[in-house]
Every structure is written in structure tokens, then in C-alpha cells.
């Protein structure tokens, strides 16, 4: 595949949450190298959108995904109930997977029904639609180390093919128990983007994109300090794009697979107007 033509989507909303980067404002300043990260780390975000009892009960994966989804929609000034969405996660809820594998060894008949239905990869997306009353479809993808890039491309394709704004959420949580030997992920990292075909008065940036063949080794690597900051979470492959977004302009190459690449050029309106 030779490099395709460049096409553009408009970035309307953005969010990021990690234990030491609990929001896009602080994350942008830290990722751009303007400030030091806060010393204290938070355990998990409070999903304000959920009623208090649900907030406490929500598994980490759900709390994280719902909170970054809500913040991205708020930043875009769009009603979440109207937005189709794409969710990407490498491992879904590793704590629940650990629980299921563990209980199956000795007492399978005691499997918790709630844990079971929360174990599906689309649990966070399902709870998001319930919380927002959203009947628009959602898509969930899991593409191992390429989950962020392939999910982003899916959101872009939905914008390009059907026109409306689309919410994109990517997240992973920490591994637990024996799973830590095979599913590597630490800390919590979630990001949200709202993409639209056309610019609005509140657009944050233009994302020009193009796909081409090429080795995944060509992919832009995150700043090692930022990778450490998110504890090498399985979704850390989102960092190069957010570093560029924090700086306001630049280009990154994301690997869609072993032999396929997505180039994204970030242009802010301010810069485009110059």
C-alpha cells in the first residue's frame, strides 16, 4: 500500500486520565514539558456521570472509560446521548479476568453473575450507553499493541463514512495476580477524543491522516519519561499523539499492525490561520 491521500477530521474534544495525570489540562502541561507532574498519584477517577452507588461498584475499567468519555464530550460541548462511539482496550478488565480464571479452578459454580457480565470486553461501552441513555451504536476493538491506533482509525472511518461526530475512548488498567506474568499493564490510563467531519467554533485542532505500508518499527516512540509516568500501561501507545496535541502541532506515525501505519498531522486552528 503506497501512501494514501491526506484527509482531515476535526478534533472537537479531548480528555486524558492517568494516576499522575488526572485530566487533560495538567497532562497537556506535563506532556509539553512545561511543568512537573504532581507528586501524588490518584488511585482511580470518580465517574461523576454515574449515580453514587454505581460509582463505587463500577470496576476500574468502567470508571476510567466512563470518566474520560464524559470529559471528552463535555470538552466538545456535545450531548453524549447522540454520539456513536468507538472503544479500544488491549485487555479489558484484567482484575475481572483474574477473578474468573481463579474461581474456575476450584469453585466454578460460585462464579459471580455480576463479575461475569462485567467481564465482557464491551462492558465499559455498555455502561456508558446506559449512563447516557445513548442508543447510537458503539464499536469495541482489541488489537493488542495496536489497539489505540486501530481504534482511532475506526473512529476516523466512521466520521468519514457516515458524517456525524464520533466519540473515541481508549483505556487499559493494571494487571492482577498470575495474569501479570502474561498480560503486561500497570496503572490506569484512559483517553478520549471527539472527532467530527467539519470544524466548529470550538474545534481544538485538525487531524490530517493517511495510511501506508511500513514496518511498525517506524512508529513514533513516546518520550521515555512520559512512558514511565503512565507506568508503561498497555495503552501507552497513545502517548505520541497526545504529546503532539499538547504541543499544539506536529506529526506522528502510529502502527496499525506489523506492516501498516497511520500518519497523523496535528494542526491547530491558530496555526492554520497564520
Amino acid at each position, binding site marked *: 500500500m503506497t501512501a494514501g491521500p491526506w484527509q482531515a477530521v476535526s478534533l472537537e474534544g479531548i480528555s486524558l486520565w492517568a494516576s499522575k495525570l488526572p485530566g487533560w489540562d495538567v497532562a497537556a502541561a506535563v506532556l509539553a514539558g512545561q511543568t512537573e507532574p504532581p507528586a501524588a498519584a490518584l488511585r482511580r477517577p470518580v465517574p461523576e456521570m454515574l449515580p453514587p452507588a454505581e460509582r463505587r461498584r463500577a470496576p476500574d475499567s468502567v470508571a476510567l472509560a466512563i470518566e474520560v468519555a464524559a470529559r471528552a464530550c463535555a470538552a466538545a460541548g456535545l450531548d453524549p446521548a447522540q454520539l456513536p462511539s468507538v472503544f479500544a482496550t488491549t485487555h479489558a478488565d484484567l482484575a475481572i479476568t483474574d477473578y474468573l480464571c481463579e474461581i474456575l*479452578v476450584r469453585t466454578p*459454580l460460585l462464579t459471580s453473575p455480576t463479575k461475569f457480565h462485567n467481564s465482557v470486553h*464491551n462492558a465499559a461501552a455498555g455502561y456508558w450507553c446506559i449512563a447516557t441513555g445513548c442508543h447510537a451504536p*458503539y464499536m*469495541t476493538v482489541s488489537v493488542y499493541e495496536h489497539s489505540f491506533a486501530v481504534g482511532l482509525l475506526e473512529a476516523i472511518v466512521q466520521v468519514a*463514512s457516515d458524517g456525524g461526530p464520533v466519540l473515541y475512548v481508549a483505556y487499559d488498567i493494571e494487571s492482577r495476580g498470575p495474569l501479570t506474568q502474561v498480560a503486561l499493564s500497570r496503572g490506569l490510563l484512559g483517553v478520549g477524543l471527539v472527532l467530527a467531519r467539519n470544524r466548529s467554533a470550538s474545534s481544538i485542532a485538525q487531524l490530517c491522516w493517511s495510511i501506508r505500508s511500513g514496518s511498525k518499527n517506524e512508529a513514533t516512540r513516546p518520550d521515555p519519561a512520559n512512558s514511565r509516568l503512565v507506568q508503561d500501561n498497555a495503552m501507552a501507545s497513545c502517548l505520541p499523539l497526545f504529546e503532539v496535541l499538547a504541543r499544539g502541532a506536529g506529526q506522528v506515525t502510529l502502527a496499525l499492525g506489523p506492516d501498516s501505519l497511520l500518519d497523523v498531522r496535528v494542526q491547530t486552528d491558530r496555526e492554520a490561520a497564520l
Partner: protein
Amino acid sequence: MHLDALRSRRSGLRPNDFTEAPLDTWIGRVDGLESRPLPGEYGLWDCRNNRLAWLAMQQDYFLDAISAARARYGPSRIALLLGTSTSSIGATEEAYRQITPDGQLPARLRDSMVHTAHSLGQFAQYALGLTGICATVTTACSSSAKVFAQAERMIRCGIADAAVVGGVDTLCGSVLFGFNSLELVSTEPCRPFDVNRRGISIGEAGGFALLERDGSGPRLLGYGESSDAHHMSTPHPEGLGARLAIQDALSRSGLAPADVGYINLHGTASARNDAVEARVIADIFPETTHASSTKGWTGHALGAAGFLEASISLLAIADELAPGNLNASELDPVCGPQLRIHNARLARPVALSQSFGFGGSNCVLAFGAERAA
């Protein structure tokens, strides 16, 4: 072979002989996977789910069709989009069963690429020699229906010239005991839409198809997608999400309800799903539309159900066979005249295939016959 089973109404369900701990239920189990390891070069991905993927690829001259497509489009221009619910989690369960006293997972399973959902997509990408966009879709029981919609969008906006779509999901402890914990599994072969239905039978399945923009094969006319926004594991009581997905599919396909000859229903044989789905069908479609669930033959193949039932819908069109509801003897009174116990001749060559999943994810596919020459 599948067509013969449909015609002769031969179910593939059997008493559960899969789980080590006893569980009184019936299952749809693919024979022989235990003794068919993947060839050595694919050893990294060896597990039940990828073995079934490998077996499915060998069927119906599919690998020949892919070779030809690779030559025609180039390996980077064919997207690979596969649906699954639990993928290879059975291998992770096995690793936990074999944990060493000092808490280590067994080396063979530790050093393999089977402990993540994308094990399926990665293995298939390697086995099919494709280098373009590849995604594993994980929207539970709608997964391998939604890959058709995803493929259509990618081809329409020009980032792929063709797509391999498919679905593979295999039996494992978490789904059997998980559905048991929700009191959804039946102690007898599932009886979709029967007034005395007692729950679902879990099955496993794998399948692949090549979608192209042009060509002479049967056609994907459209699709519809929606969310219930109601509950994680029970359907919306009025079937709101199902109705939205059906309307979206009809509208994208340019079809009226009366154009539809056959509907392959989600029809899990759970009390709630079937009652809600039957009412939706009765409200939207005329009595000339023949509707059934084929899960009495196959069980509920979860993440592979969308693909499996899309294939049955295509068989229905190609062979003018509208399957009935196998194992049902007395239909629930909530069923309209669309729901049939017996097989019949397909009246119009248009079929819908409905898939509704946990997390309220709904997808309806519309298929039509080959274009007349």
C-alpha cells in the same frame, strides 16, 4: 453438510462433556480440536480458539479464494476484521489450572500469544498472509455481525479494496459457568421461541468470508446498529434497540419489511430475549416473512454467532430454504405468524440476520441474492 443438517433438521447439540466440573446442560461442540494442534510455525498461537479458526480457514476453498484476492488486490489492501467474545481465554483458564506451587504459570502457556483477545486477529493475519488493517472486534454476541458493517465502511471510504470478515468463539469455562451463574443455561437442548423454553445451549463456531466491492456473489445489502442503553445482560423490555437496528438495516438497504423473505433471529431461547424479539418481529413484519432462530441446530456461538447465522442466511437464499425453529414444539403465544416451527421454501431472496449482545449491542445484517447475469 450444513445444508443437509438444516434440511434434515439434525441438531449438533449434545450433553455437556466439555467441563471438568459437572454442569448439567447441552452444548454445541466441534469434534477433534483437542487432537489438532496448529502446525509448528503457528505454535505461538496454539489454543482451542485458533485451532478452530485454522480448521474454518481450510473449508470451502477459502484459502484458494484468499490467494487469488491477495494477487488481485495486494495483501495490504484487504482488511481483516474478526469478531469474538472470549477469544483464547480458555488457554488462560488452562494456565491457571496448571499453576505451579510458587505461583508461576506453566512455561508453555506463559510464552505464548494467547492471553489477549487479539490472539485471534494476529494469528489469522499471519496465517492468511495479510498485511493491511486488522482488528479483533469484541462487542460480545454482536461481534461477528458488526465486522460486516465495519468492512462496508472501510471499503466505502477507500482504505481497503476488500475485506476478510469472520468470527471465531470456542467453549471455555468462563462462559459455561458464567451463563450458568446468570441462570440462563438450559438442562435440555435449547428450544427457541417454545412456550416451555428453559434457556440457552452454548455452542462454538468459526467462519470467514471475503467481501468485495464488486463481483457476482451474494450481496450485503445493508446493516443496522444500535445500543439498548438498558442493562448489561438483559434486553430492553420493548426491544427498543432491536427496533432501531432493524429500521437502520431496512433503511440502509432500501428495503420495506414486506421485501424480507427470511429473518434469522437472535433467538437464544432465554425467556426474556425470545419474548421481546418475537414481539418486535410481530410489530414490524408481515406474516409473509418467515422468521426463526437456528440455535436449536448450533447452540449460541456467542461472538461467532453473528457470522454463523449470516452464513445460514446466505444458505437460505442460495438454496431457497427457510429454516424453522428446531426443537420447538409449541410456540410461545407472544409469537406472531412470522415465527415458524417447520422449514419452508424461501419466498423472496432477501434475508435479515439479527444479533443482540451483552452490553446492549445490536446489529442486523441484510443479505440479497447474487446479481442476475
